[in-house]
C-alpha cells in the first residue's frame, strides 16, 4: 500500500466506525525528540487516525504564536530532514501503527531536493506531506515526485478559494484535502466562521478525496459540531499548548485530551 493509500484508508476506517478521523498535529523536537516519540505513542493509544508531524522552519508565516513558539523550541536542536526521516523510520521499526505525514514549509524540502526527499521519505515509511506555502501554481514539481513515490500530496483550500479553483486543488490532492476553516493563521479560536459547515459540505461535493478541516479547532464541542461535515478533523495548537506547559510530562495529558477529542468525533 502506498503512503497516500494508507492515509486515506486510516480516515475511511474511522468513517466506517461512524466517526470523523482525528488528525493531531505536533512539532517534532518540541521540546525534544524523546518527548515527541512518547507523544506520538500517546496519540496512537488515544485513538487518533493519522499524525501530522511538523518539521520546524525559521520563518513559519502561516502559523500563530503557539506554533511559532513550538518552532523556536524545536529549532534549538538544529534539526535536519535526515534526522527527521531517521526518526520516522525508527518509529515504524518499533511497530508504530499510524500513518505519519510531515507538515513543513517549502524551503527545507527544496534545499534537500524534492526527488531525494520523496525517495527517502518512502524508504522511511513517511506517508505524505503538507506544505502550506506551496500553492497549486508552484506545486507541480512536488506533485510529480510525490506521485512517483506514492506519497500523499495534501493540498490546502481556504475560505477565500473560489469554487472553480477548489475543484482543481481537490483533483491533485491525494490522501486528503486540507480545508482551512478560517481566513487566517493557525491557533485556537473561540468561534469558528458561521458558514463553515456549509463550505465544508460544498467542499466534500467536489472533492474525490476525504476532506479534513483544520485551523482554530481546539475543543471537543467544536469537534462534535464539525464531525458530521468532514471526514477528518485536525487539531494542532491546542495540543502544542499542553506540550508547552508540561514539557516531557505532557504525553499523559495529551493522551487524555486526545481521547476526549476522539470521543467527540462520533457522527450521530
Amino acid at each position, binding site marked *: 500500500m502506498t503512503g497516500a493509500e494508507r492515509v486515506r484508508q486510516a480516515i475511511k476506517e474511522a468513517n466506517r466506525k461512524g466517526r470523523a478521523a482525528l488528525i493531531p498535529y505536533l512539532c517534532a523536537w518540541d521540546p525534544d525528540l524523546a518527548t515527541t516519540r512518547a507523544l506520538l505513542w500517546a496519540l496512537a493509544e488515544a485513538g487518533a487516525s493519522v499524525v501530522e508531524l511538523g518539521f520546524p522552519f525559521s520563518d513559519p508565516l*502561516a502559523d500563530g504564536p503557539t506554533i511559532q513558539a513550538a518552532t523556536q523550541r524545536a529549532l534549538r536542536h538544529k534539526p535536519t530532514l535526515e534526522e527527521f526521516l531517521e526518526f520516522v523510520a525508527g518509529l515504524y521499526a518499533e511497530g508504530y501503527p499510524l500513518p505519519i505525514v510531515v507538515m513543513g514549509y517549502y*524551503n527545507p524540502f527544496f534545499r534537500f531536493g524534492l526527488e531525494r526527499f520523496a525517495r527517502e521519505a518512502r524508504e522511511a515509511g513517511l506517508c505524505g506531506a503538507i506544505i502550506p*506555502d506551496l500553492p497549486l*501554481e508552484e506545486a507541480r514539481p512536488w506533485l510529480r515526485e510525490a506521485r512517483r513515490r506514492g506519497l500523499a500530496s495534501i493540498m*490546502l483550500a481556504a475560505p477565500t*478559494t473560489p469554487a472553480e479553483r477548489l475543484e482543481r486543488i481537490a483533483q491533485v490532492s491525494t490522501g486528503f484535502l486540507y480545508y482551512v476553516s478560517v481566513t487566517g493563521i493557525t491557533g485556537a479560536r473561540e468561534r469558528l466562521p458561521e458558514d463553515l459547515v456549509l463550505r465544508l459540505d460544498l467542499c466534500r461535493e467536489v472533492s474525490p478525496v476525504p476532506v479534513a478541516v483544520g485551523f482554530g479547532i481546539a475543543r471537543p464541542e467544536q469537534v462534535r459540531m464539525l464531525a458530521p461535515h468532514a471526514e477528518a478533523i485536525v487539531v494542532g495548537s491546542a495540543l502544542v499548548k499542553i506540550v508547552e506547559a508540561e514539557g516531557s510530562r505532557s504525553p499523559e495529558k495529551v493522551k487524555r485530551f486526545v481521547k476526549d477529542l476522539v470521543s467527540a468525533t462520533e457522527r450521530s
Partner: protein
Amino acid sequence: MLPNKRGKFGPFGGRFVPETLMPALTELEEAYRRLRRDPGFRRELAWYLREYAGRPTPLYPARRLSEALGGHLRIYLKREDLLHTGAHKINNTLGQVLLARRMGKRRIIAETGAGQHGVATATAAALLGLECVVYMGAKDTVRQAMNVFRMELLGARVVPVKSGTQTLKDAINEAIRDWVTNVETTFYVIGSVVGPHPYPMMVRDFQSVIGRETRRQILKLEGRLPDMVIACVGGGSNAMGIFYPFVRDQVVKLVGVEAAGQGLESDRHSATLTVGEPGVLHGMLTYLLQDRVGQIKGAHSIAPGLDYPGVGPEHAFLRECGRAEYVAVDDEEALSAFRLLSETEGIIPALESAHAVAYLVKIADRLPRDTIVVVNLSGRGDKDVAAVRDYLSGKMA
C-alpha cells in the same frame, strides 16, 4: 517581457504563499495591470510624484568627488536623497497606496526594517487618509526609535514584532500573517522588489521612474548613455528602479553593491547574491542566506536598510544571465565613502547609498579616462548620523 504570466524571472520569483492569499494576489495583479495603463491613474501618480514628493530629482555632476578619485571620471549622482521623506521609498509607497485607494481598500499594512519604508508608507497613508499599521522587528524599534516616533506622528500604529530574530524578515512574516487574516479589507504595501508576484514587478515599475529620468538626463547632459550604473542592493528596489530602463542597453554596465558587513567569512553580512544560495522565502524563489538545512540566517550590515537575508528575484535573474554584476563592500568601506562624500560634495549619504559610492571608490583607479558613471544616491544620511557618531567614538575608545 519579464516576469512571465506566473511571475517568474527565469527560475526565480513566483508565488509561494498560503492558499488564503492566492485570490488576493490575483486580484492585485489584475487591478495593477488595468490601472498602470489607465491615463487617470498615471496622471494622478505623476502629479503626486512631482508636486508632493519632489520629482524629477537632479542628476548631479559630482566634480569634487571625481577630483578626489583621480579626476579622470565623469561621475553623476542621481539625487533620490532629495525626495520627500529622504529616500527613493516614497516613489513606491505613493504608487501602492494610490492603487489601494482605487481598489477600495481602507486599511494599509507594511513592514519596515530601519523604518524608512514604514515612514514612507505612513506618509502616503496620511496623505490619502487611510488607516496604517506598520510591523517592525522589536530590536529595530529600539535601534530606530526616532523613526517609530515619526510614523506615530504620521498617524500610523507601529507594532513591535517579537518573534524569530526580531528584525526585518520577522516583520515581513508578521505583516503576511496580518494580511492572511484581514485580506478582504487590507492592502499590503511591500517596501522592496521582493515577495510574491506581482510585488517584484509592481515595485520595480514604480521605482523605474528613477532610471527613466536618469536616462533622459544623461542623454541631455552627455549626449550618450553612461558606461556604468552603480546602486546598493538590500532587497534591491532602488537598484532595480535605476537598472530597469537600461537593461536593454548592453553598453551600460549595471553593478549592484551588497553589504559585506564585517566580512564575507564572518557570517555577519547581507551579501545574498554574492554568497547566498537559491531558496524560497516570503513568497519568492531567490537567493537567500540560509544554512545547510534551509533555515534562514540573520543578516547584518551597518546600513540597516541592507540588512535582509533575501533579494529581489529579478536581481537573481540578472545575476544568473550575466546582465548585471553584484559585488559587496564592507562596513568600513561604506563608512569611508560616507565621510568622503560628505567632505567632498557636502552631501551626507544614507549608509545604504554609501555602499554604492564605496564600490566606485574601490574601482575608480581601474576605470579608463572619461568613463561616465552614475551612482544612485538612494537616500540621505540624516537618519544615520547618530549611529555613525556612536560607531566612530566606540572605535576611538
